[in-house]
């Protein structure tokens, strides 16, 4: 026998084989991409649902990596029929990884065991992914020289990961959303497994049952991809609807924009702020009655409302010369200016020369900043579901606001639902009265919220306005009149005054809304 110029350690030529190395290398690429996608899906999902992206991402990645280590280590205990094991592992990853996003969403919405499930899922997927590559390398080790094998497998592994990491934020997240991305990559993983039953058929032996399993897994995931929409609708009441198109964790809150069913929605800390389908009802009602009650308003203050939608309504009044928008979160106002969907919806309101944007806590801004008094102030804060928000509904806040209004100034305050949180709604009215305002409560139906309530208030006497701006989408003179009438189930109930040192509103609000969730 001639000397082996290739220097194979045993001195033997690799046995001629029908095993094709190239397609298997291609599968490495796909497997790597899928593996990274599951990791990103889990990290993104947990940071959306639990907040605090840095913490969530790093724990998910940490757990995932150690699970991969575990998988790699376990691989040495896999002895017989490596090829069959490889296909089985592929199918298992496809199933567990592919269904991870829908299952976790469901768990978050319906159970209290989100975290254990999340980490269980991450460990399972990580372990399986950790098993893949060592086993594949052992399958290929007799076909390819070791140094080439290592070089190819690792190169493709990294390239696959690179692809995935670029595709995920740029294409998958915005176009498909988390649920479909995870299902789709599961499907891809399943197809790799199924493909393996052909590539490795000589080593597997009996393939019928294995293929059947593969087909079933793929069919299930395919079904999932098509049903993803319906599924997200089903859990949407509890979690965000639809796909997430924009998400940002600011120091103050978690901002998420989702899209689906011909509209898009904004969530702050998981609470719906508006849906583009019916926000015009909400914002017209917030803005125009106040401006109708105080004609010829020149200076308008908007507190909260960093989405620019209230400002859009204010700017419809040509007599308004100056709008000051005070919103806590620079991320929010910058998103209102630059995020295409939102910018289109608010008509670029925040870039209007009449508008001045201030990023500050309105509570602190009112205490510390002095400027000319306002004719109208529109108060559009999220509902008082935390002490930090509750302070914006106190006598202290309203008195500070009063101090910045003209004597005949008017304010409109979003005041949660008089139907779902009746006590809380009337607590806002009582608190405004205790702060020296005359109050006229009103409400309307905003389908994505339910029946919603506001207060129109002024330090002086005023009448419910009779005429509003013509040409609005919802509000007419008649509709405006109707908003001020209260049916029996929302009529006034006695309530305590909400003060900084009692924060009764936060307690009432939490109690009342608990009944509806």
């Amino acid at each position: 026998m001639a000397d082996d110029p290739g220097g194979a350690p045993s001195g033997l030529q690799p046995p001629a084989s029908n095993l094709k190395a190239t397609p298997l290398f291609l599968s490495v690429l796909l497997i790597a991409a899928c593996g990274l996608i599951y990791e990103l899906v889990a990290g993104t999902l947990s940071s959306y649902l639990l907040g605090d992206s840095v913490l969530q991402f790093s724990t998910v990645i940490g757990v995932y990596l150690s699970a991969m280590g575990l998988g790699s280590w376990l691989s040495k205990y896999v002895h017989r029929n490596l090829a069959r094991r490889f296909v089985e592992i592929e199918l298992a990853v496809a199933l567990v990884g592919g269904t991870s996003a829908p299952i976790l969403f469901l768990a978050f919405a319906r159970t209290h065991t989100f975290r254990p499930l999340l980490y269980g899922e991450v460990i399972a997927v990580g372990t399986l992914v950790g098993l893949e590559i060592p086993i594949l390398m052992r399958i290929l080790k007799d076909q390819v020289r070791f140094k080439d094998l290592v070089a190819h497998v690792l190169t493709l592994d990294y390239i696959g990961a690179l692809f995935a990491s670029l595709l995920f934020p740029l294409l998958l997240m915005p176009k498909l959303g988390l649920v479909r991305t995870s299902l789709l990559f599961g499907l891809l993983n399943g197809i790799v497994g199924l493909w393996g039953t052909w590539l490795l058929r000589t080593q597997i032996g009996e393939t019928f049952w294995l293929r059947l399993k593969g087909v079933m897994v793929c069919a299930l995931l395919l079904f999932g991809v098509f049903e993803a929409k319906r599924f997200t609708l089903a859990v949407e009441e509890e979690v965000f609807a639809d796909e997430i198109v924009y998400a940002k964790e600011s120091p103050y809150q978690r901002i998420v924009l989702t899209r689906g069913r011909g509209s898009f929605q904004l969530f702050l800390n998981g609470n719906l702020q508006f849906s583009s389908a019916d926000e015009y009802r909400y914002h017209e009602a917030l803005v125009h009655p106040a401006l109708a009650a105080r004609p010829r308003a020149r200076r308008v203050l908007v507190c909260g409302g960093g989405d620019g939608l209230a400002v859009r309504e204010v700017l419809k009044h040509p007599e308004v010369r100056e709008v000051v928008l005070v919103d806590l979160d620079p991320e929010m106002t910058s998103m209102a200016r630059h995020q295409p969907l939102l910018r289109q919806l608010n008509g670029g309101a925040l870039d209007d020369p009449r508008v001045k944007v201030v990023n500050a806590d309105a509570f602190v801004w009112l205490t510390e900043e002095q400027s000319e008094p306002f004719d109208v102030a529109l108060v559009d804060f999220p509902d008082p579901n935390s002490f930090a928000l509750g302070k914006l509904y106190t006598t202290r806040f309203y008195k500070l606001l009063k101090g910045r209004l003209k004597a005949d100034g008017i304010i409109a305050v979003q005041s949660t639902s008089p139907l779902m949180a009746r006590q809380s709604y009337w607590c806002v009215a009582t608190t405004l009265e205790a702060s020296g305002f005359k109050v006229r409560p009103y409400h309307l139906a905003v389908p994505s919220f339910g029946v919603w309530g506001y207060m129109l208030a002024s330090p002086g006497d005023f009448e419910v306005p009779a005429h509003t701006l013509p040409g609005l989408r919802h509000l007419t003179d008649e509709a405006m009149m109707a908003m001020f009438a209260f049916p029996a189930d929302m009529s006034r109930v006695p309530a305590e005054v909400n003060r900084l040192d009692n924060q009764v509103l936060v307690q009432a609000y939490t109690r009342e809304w608990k009944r509806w969730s």
Partner: protein
Amino acid sequence: MNGDGRMKRRTFLALSAAASVACRRRPGFEASLIAPDMATGHRLRQGGLPEPDRWEDVPILIVGGGIAGLSAAWQLDRLGLREHLILELEPAAGGTARGSRNGISPHPLGAHYLPAPPREHADLVELLGETGAIESFGPDGEPRYAEHMLVREPEERIFAGGQWWEGLYFHAGANGEDLRQLKRFQAEVDRLAAWRDGKGRPAFGLPRSRGSDAPEVRALDGVTLADWCNGHGLTSPRLRWMLDYACRDDYGLRLDETSAWAGLFYFAARQQGPHDRSRPILTWPNGNGFLVEHLARQAGHRLRTGHAVASLRTTSTGVEARVLEVATGRMLGFRARRAIFAGPLHLAGAVVEGLKADRGSSLEAFHRSPWLVVNLTLRKRPREVGFPMAWDNVIRDSPSLGYVVATHQRGLDAGPTVWTWYHPFTGEEKAERARLLAMDAPACAEMALADLERAHPEIRELVARVDVARWGHAMVRPRPGFCWSEALVRARQPFGPIHFAHTELSGLALFEEAFDHGLRAAREVNALYRSGSRST
């Protein structure tokens, strides 16, 4: 097969992450000692200072610009005696009630709150009225305090079992017996709050001079609060923890060393009657520094800071004070008809000539707990589990008292903040003081961080700067027998033309007591001064 290159990459990533964490462990902040001025205190005690080259005459001299000294000045003004001077050793007035500020927030260096006084405490109500703390008066004459000066909800939370809970009493997991004992204790406090003696005085008044001296009340001073609890069958660990916390918080003492009279005073004196759980609390971003600033403004140029009184000598016409002007090192002389010594009594012994000889044993009876106050300026808030951040944040399994959030009252609920962390040294006085004074600023910062790490593992990463106040003689210790002792009564007596005002004279370190002694000393001076002026 040595195939797993992935593991190597992962291991490398993990290692470099660990390495970068390790690098960041180097403290990325500056720590400085900001109070008190130990060097000047040391120079005074060393003695050997030269004679003044210049003398100034002033009718009334107040030594010490803490709450007691400033209140004395305020009262003298009310009595029409506007010609007085306050000499304060430190660069700013306020003593243990001082506040400070940095780029992020004003914050306390010591005292940080005051229970909102009821209308009966008319002098204090008047003072608070001047500061804008009272919005109006109710039909019953009770003051209505300004909303933003009353502690904003949530007031307190406690860290236990890995997360934060609402309130100071750790309710979660308390059993039936725990809750029954809590109720029994509260009933006992209610009973004491409702109790009146033959003259109609409550068992505990704020200040204590408004309370009863009936034997059954005084008897409480004979035992420790721990013994009193044992006698009442109050053994619940949760209740005892809360009472121990209260003793450490108000007096820097443990439950088994605090007089039952003082311990119960903490609870009952703030209560107007049964079921009125406790008075609402007034607080400001710079703590009681807010009240100091008001009083210092009233004093105006009559307050001279950076003036350390080295000695007070009684003469035939009154008092002579030898004073070190800290900034220049010059000695100044002041001649006054009357003086009020408003510093702590261990300094009175050193400064007032002849006092030690006259009443040394009475001065020896005072014991004091050292305190460490560390202000941590944070770049941002840490992550947390459970009840949201409150004004007062207590860690159950800690010898410290936790921290107060300086930005809480301003309504700043996100972003940078300042935390004021309090640690009383409850052990043997001298050893504890030596331990405290041996710690430099970084060591003090380390003590606070190690403690806070129990609840906030990532705290070190968030700290931008640390400002430390080491109070060697912070709080007088109300151990059994002291609050009603002869020594205390004697220490309040004027020494010739020199009167005394300091919270220590009550045996309790509280704003109301310092204020009360300031007013009392001013009234004493007023009475004698007027009769004196008539005779000349």
